């Protein structure tokens, strides 16, 4: 069978034809194509996973392995409707959702207690802060929170899950999830302001 030259720039975008060709070769267990597959997909998946598992960076490699294994096993189902990277990011999203669901199921979340005040977040932000500096500060602040708070905030605001979805997936009530989020926001705000002062 006539094939196009092998992909030489795996970090760049591939045409859908090149993607299908790469997938076919990986499925045939071509070791070189498998290397290109790893080089092509890993960066985008890594960034996604790392930002969702923070501060538990020690878990990232295991989750990455799970994702690549799942992708390899599911490759026969790849139809090319979405790009290969987007398709693998979908698998990564499922894996990180599994992790969030598992951890929040185990977390002790109650409905009791008064609701903390929930003022707008804007006053705590410096509008002139450089975007990269602000992102670093966000990650540092998230790392200071109890794990359940970090997971809840990322799931809700980075992954844009609804409170209802979060409650259903983690086996909690919506009220309990709202309380968890309120406490998480309050603690985030406190840590953020503490770091500023």
């Amino acid at each position, binding site marked *: 069978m006539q094939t196009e030259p*092998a992909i030489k720039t795996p970090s760049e975008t591939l045409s859908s034809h090149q993607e299908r060709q790469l997938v076919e070769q990986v499925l045939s*267990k071509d070791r070189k194509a498998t*290397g290109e597959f790893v080089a092509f997909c890993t*960066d985008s998946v*890594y960034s996604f996973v790392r930002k969702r598992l923070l501060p538990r960076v020690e878990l990232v*490699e295991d989750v990455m392995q799970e994702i690549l294994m799942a992708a390899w096993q599911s490759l026969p189902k790849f139809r090319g409707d979405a790009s290969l990277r987007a398709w693998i990011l979908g698998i990564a999203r499922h894996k990180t959702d599994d992790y969030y669901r598992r951890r929040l199921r185990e977390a002790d979340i109650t409905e009791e207690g008064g609701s903390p005040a929930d003022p707008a977040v804007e006053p705590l*932000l410096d509008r002139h802060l450089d975007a*990269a500096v602000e992102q670093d500060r966000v990650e540092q602040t998230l790392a200071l929170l109890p794990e359940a708070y970090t997971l809840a905030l990322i799931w809700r605001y980075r992954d844009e899950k609804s409170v209802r979805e979060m409650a259903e997936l983690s086996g909690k009530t919506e009220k309990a999830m709202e309380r968890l989020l309120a406490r998480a926001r309050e603690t985030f705000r406190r840590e953020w302001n503490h770091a500023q002062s």
Partner: protein
Amino acid sequence: MPSPETERQWHTLLADDQESRRPASSSLKGRLYSVLIRSQQETGPLASLDASVANGHGICVFEKLVQIAPVSEAAKSPFFCTACHARLLAEHFDNPPISWAHCPYVQFKT
């Protein structure tokens, strides 16, 4: 429940911004590659080096020696990197001092 405006501010603050994305280390890519190849081997032999060449891929100097050796196709299918020091270096160090053309681990260097 916070107001919609407050919710929007939290979404903005915690959004996954594209600019701060960081690439995976070369050693992580190397380990992931090795794991994936081992997983492929569990379901049968890898494609031969001849098949890789036919697919348009280059092979490293060590693989070339195997490819031209008068041995069967089956003997050309093992994962030869298992015995190569380049793999060891690549799995344990970021951007290791390896530079052989067509070494799969070299492409992971940043």
